[in-house]
């Protein structure tokens, strides 16, 4: 019957619709920001480990070997966290005479090196915490300690506040080269991911120098002028680009192309303190397996920078100044350290089970799933396709006419039962629908008639609605006047019922509150408008 009607009817039928609301422009987050947001504090960590620290976390280093433990320096300690459970595993405390700095794992993850403010560089066994070597040579605080990243296990380099970069042979505890050139504190540096012989150091003299120990006696190979005290230097995975942070900027340099400045990212509001390489560890999607620069700053923002497109792809705010950042090589963990000792550890949920399963059946999978034959109209199975069959590309689609869904109030309105429609809308929960029905009744000039026909209970419903929503700015213009009329026309009914009187009292309170707000708003406007006028005149 309904189908019949729709076929022969000429005038279309429209349900009552609420007014459209403006939609925000970023209604759908990009897949990438979804990815970065998916790093959450895992639920299974009961005690947040950060509670125990009160000193700034000066550096974070991830072990390159699975399960990617990470070490954080704070005060005179290094704490090693388990990469699996994210719990603190062990703490090296006794070795340091002063605050520890710049933890670094060797390329096989077995050794851990860190500097301290006295200028000594310490080397530990990462597992047993045995203090293996002490590299003494820096005249003041050693703020930079790094192992070469490729496969050199015998050397490391360090930089200190004495503006010297030293290249050490770890086994003999001897300094092989003193690399001179910086004129101020050396605070940061990074080893090239592709060559054991090259590394960069950044200093407060605004310069980043790139060193090659093969030509060590002729000073630095290249000099990049960051124009601000350099806080962090990062070799990007290709080895051809360097990112430097200092001041409010992050700059990208092309090292192979002669140290050309490619881009300067200036979206932080305070000093950028640390950089690290992040990777989108998704299997699919356009950005899968792409590298990003994570930068943290004292303004509390972590920004994700796509250095291929020179675009900020994600930005995240934290309540504290951020000092250090680390990202695990397996893309599962992101750690940020702050100036008050708080860690923000984010872990991405990975479907471990499915991974395991894939590993187990990985070999047998080929034979388990035989290739299904493509359906052709000559096959019998072709005619047994179900409703779920997806149309092929060339298929001509006949869409089923959309069935209009009528709410209860629509059905009443269709039958011109106006009061029932209003009551039906009121007993629904959506205020937008109620207002839409009321507006439709206004268009039919029936609203006031409906109001006068409501019995006690329904009137209570209406007054309750009015009390709740008449001060909401979206509906106020319409509902205030209606409230006025309702109170005016139904005064004696309201007076005779305690419950209704209670609602009216609440309504009165709300209205008074609203008036107070309006007044204070007007005061503010009074203050602002002369200023705006003056500003406009200039």
């Amino acid at each position: 019957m309904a189908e019949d009607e729709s076929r022969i009817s000429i005038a279309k039928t429209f349900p009552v619709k609420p007014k459209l609301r403006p939609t925000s422009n970023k209604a759908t987050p990009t897949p990438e920001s979804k990815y970065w947001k998916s790093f959450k504090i895992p639920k299974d960590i009961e005690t947040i480990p950060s509670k125990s620290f009160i000193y700034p976390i000066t550096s974070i280093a991830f072990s390159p070997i699975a399960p990617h433990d990470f070490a954080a320096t704070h005060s005179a300690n290094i704490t090693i966290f388990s990469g699996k459970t994210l719990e603190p595993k062990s703490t090296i405390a006794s070795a340091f005479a002063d605050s520890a700095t710049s933890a670094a794992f060797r390329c096989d993850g077995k050794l851990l090196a860190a500097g301290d403010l006295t200028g000594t560089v310490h080397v530990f066994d990462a597992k047993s915490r045995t203090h293996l070597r002490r590299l003494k040579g820096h005249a003041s605080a050693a703020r930079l300690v790094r192992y070469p990243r490729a496969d050199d296990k015998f050397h490391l380099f360090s930089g200190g506040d004495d503006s010297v970069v030293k290249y050490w042979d770890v086994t003999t505890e001897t300094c092989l080269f003193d690399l001179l050139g910086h004129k101020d504190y050396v605070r940061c540096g990074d080893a090239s991911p592709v060559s054991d012989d090259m590394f960069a150091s950044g200093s407060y003299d605004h310069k980043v120098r790139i060193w090659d120990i093969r030509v060590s006696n002729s000073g630095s190979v290249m000099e990049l002028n960051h124009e601000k005290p350099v806080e962090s230097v990062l070799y990007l995975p290709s080895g051809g680009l360097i990112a430097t942070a200092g001041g409010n900027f992050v700059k990208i340099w092309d090292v192979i192309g002669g140290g050309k400045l490619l881009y300067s990212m200036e979206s932080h509001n305070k000093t950028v303190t640390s950089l690290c390489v992040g990777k989108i560890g998704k299997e699919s999607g356009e950005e899968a397996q792409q590298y990003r620069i994570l930068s943290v700053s004292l303004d509390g923002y972590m920004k994700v920078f796509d250095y291929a497109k020179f675009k900020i792809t994600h930005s995240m705010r934290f309540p504290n100044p951020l000092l250090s950042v680390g990202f695990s090589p397996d893309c599962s963990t992101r750690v940020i350290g702050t100036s008050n000792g708080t860690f923000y550890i984010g872990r991405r949920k990975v479907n471990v089970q499915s991974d395991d399963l894939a590993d187990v059946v990985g070999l047998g999978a080929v034979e388990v799933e035989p290739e299904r034959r493509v359906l052709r109209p000559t096959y019998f199975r072709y005619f047994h396709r179900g409703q779920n069959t997806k149309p092929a590309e060339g298929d001509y689609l006949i869409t089923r006419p959309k069935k209009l869904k009528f709410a209860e109030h629509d059905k009443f309105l269709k039958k011109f039962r106006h009061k029932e429609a209003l009551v039906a809308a009121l007993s629904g929960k959506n205020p937008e629908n109620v207002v839409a029905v009321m507006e439709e009744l206004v268009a039919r000039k029936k609203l006031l008639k409906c109001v006068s026909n409501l019995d006690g209970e329904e009137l209570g419903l209406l007054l309750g609605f009015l009390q709740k929503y008449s001060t909401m700015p979206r509906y106020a213009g319409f509902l205030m006047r209606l409230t006025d009329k309702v109170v005016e026309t139904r005064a004696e009914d309201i007076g005779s019922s305690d419950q209704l009187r209670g609602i009216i009292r609440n309504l009165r309170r709300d209205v008074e509150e609203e008036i107070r707000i309006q007044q204070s708003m007007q005061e503010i406007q009074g203050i602002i408008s002369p200023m705006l006028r003056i500003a406009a005149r200039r």
Partner: protein
Amino acid sequence: MITGGKSFVSSPPAFSNDAKRLLVCTGNTVSIFSTSTGLQISELEGHGAPVTSVIVVPASTPASKVLCHCWTASLDGKIKFWDFTAPELMRTIDVRLPIHSMVIPNLLNQPTKSNGKSPNLFAYIYVEVVKQKEGQPNSSCGQIRKCNLTQSRLAGGVNLAETHKPGCITISPSGKYIGICEAHKLRIWEIPTKDSDNAVYKKIRLHHTKTFTTLAFHPTERVVAAGDVTGRILLWRGVGHRTFSTGDKFINGGLNKDAEERPGVRGDDDADSCTTWHWHSVEVNVLFFSSDGAYLFSGGREGVFVVWQLDTGKKKFLPRIGSPLLYFTNSSDPSLSSISCANNRIHLLRMPSMEILRSISGIKLPSSVSDIYEGSGSGVFFDHTAGLVAVPTDNYSVQFYSLFNDCEISEVQICERNHQPGDEATVKVNLVALSRDGSTMGTVETRVPEERIGGLASLKFWACGSQNKDFSLSTVIYEPHRDAGVSSIAFHPTCPMAVTSSYGGDFKIWVRTPDTRLKDQMLQSSGWRCHAVGSYKKKPMTAAAFSADGSVLAVAAENVITLWDPEQNILVAVVGDVLEPITTLSFVGKSAYLVSASPGSNPQLTLWSMSKLSTSWSYKLNAEDVSCSLDGSTFAILALLPKTSESVEPAEGTLQGVDGAILLFNVENPVPLATWFVSKAQGGKLGFIQTSPKLEDEFADVKPDHGLLAYMNSDYEYVLFDPYGEKDHNQSITREQNLSNLEEKEKIGYASIYGELAEFSVEKDQTQIPYIPYEKNWETIFSGPSHKLAPLTKLCLDFLESSLERRSVTVE
């Protein structure tokens, strides 16, 4: 000169005998539509005033079905006889009285006598007679007169009835009775079977307490149905047993029945019984008995077509027709009928299933209740380039109507709301504007508040999807100027920018944000947003217009004109001071002139020079509408003539109903270039229309920068003419004849069930077979595979021939 936009529903249409054509009275002409395609086939032109009746001569024998003759009557007092296939005028009878309705009772059973002399054919016409009484102004009244069509004269002295106002005569399907509704009573006459000039009529009256609106006769029985203004349908049975002669000579006992035995019959009315059906909530406009007399069809203001089973009173409905029904017409084909709706549509109905086959649709008529919105205009907008007019309709949509082709292009639903035809219009689309290139439409709809609650104006911007003017909603702005109403909307000529002005004292400039397609994201919809707000001394802004290059925005702030830079929103200048609020502003083409019109008690039409920022010249004229040519320096105004005007008197006294004049001006000269007098100018519209490229050859002598001028009166009838041409030249502009002659060939028998068979030629097979005659071929003739053998007819001939011995010598 092109005219169009006529009402299809001013009077009932008529079907041709074969039910393939529908004759519709459209103004001064009768348009003939094909019922199978719904397109216009031809037109009967000849009347000088609106045609009020069209009667097709019915076919008495199957052979005469091909005859296509019809009678038409018109307000110009002429009755014409046509052959409408040709179409050809055959006869004209001048009765010199405006005919409002005509019936010809004896048309059906007109006996053709063997001696070839047919009796006189009489028509009953409802005419308007102007009476001259002493001491009184001329008062008109309606009279039913009789006209001898055979002898082309009025039957002298016959005046069946005299009423206050001429209306509609209803005739029974058998042609035996005619009747009219007159206030609270029905008057019914019996037409004698042998009608003559001085026949005697038997008549009865039926009374009711309400005003009748329509009446219908049962095809076989003496049953009369009538509808009244309250929606009641009254059904009298056994009407006129006392008065009218019964065919079977049996005077039944109804004569002696007293009041108790005649339930529902009022007073001394001559009927056996009267029953009342009340379903319609408002007045009944349509009543019609089905041809077998078993059903009664009714329809009214609420737009629902109801079929009543006459014996039981059971109802079936065809709901949601969307407009008040006006007429129902049936055809000789029992399955095909038509209903005419007030929104200028005729629906062709397949009858037992009540299915709408197709609709013939004209320009949507203006809504009758439009004056509740002060000063908002009718909202009609001319699309200069496409030759279209956008007309807001009753059911909250905008109809695009082609002026050149006189047909509907499309309809855009502006406000998604169910339209109830009977209701008072409280939501209305009152402003429509199109951008110069036709790609964007701006509409303003207003909802009237109920006791100051819930009034709402919403501004909508629409983007044109394809070329066929199907617009999709781009942006909705609720309450663009807070509570104040929007007075005008105008588009920038080149870039996507629009301005709305409001009575609340400000105007807003809207711009479209460009499309931004972000990667991996949905297309961010391009919306319109507010670019700037301006106001001038809190005065109500009454009109707005952009200059031709878009560099200047003129906004009328009541009595003065403010000029703005639309990009920077800087007030450039303020000019003028007129006595009444300005309602229309327009820049004259590319010239540096601005024309403003302010109606009211001190009307003024002023031309402002933009270079001097001063008045160039002005008239004390009540200009209803102003339209400027796009490129040239001319503009046309539609001026309302003052009621008691001696100065502007119509040139000919015969021009009735002239209340306006179109004046064509050049900016240089305050003397109008040309003047035309028009009727129904109140609420009329003017627009310059570009000559469409299709018509270019016809207008070889029209300069390309000069468009055509379109004038649309308050009834949405329009005329399109070349304002610069000479008078006789007007005739050269003829409508692009798109009258379709293609009538679908009716399929019969096998084809009607299974469709056409594929054509194939029978000879093809035979020609390809090699066939060699051979003397003694009977040995070889049957050899070879059977499918290669020649057909039997040939083989047989050869075989016989070969087996016979041929005579060597032919005998002379």
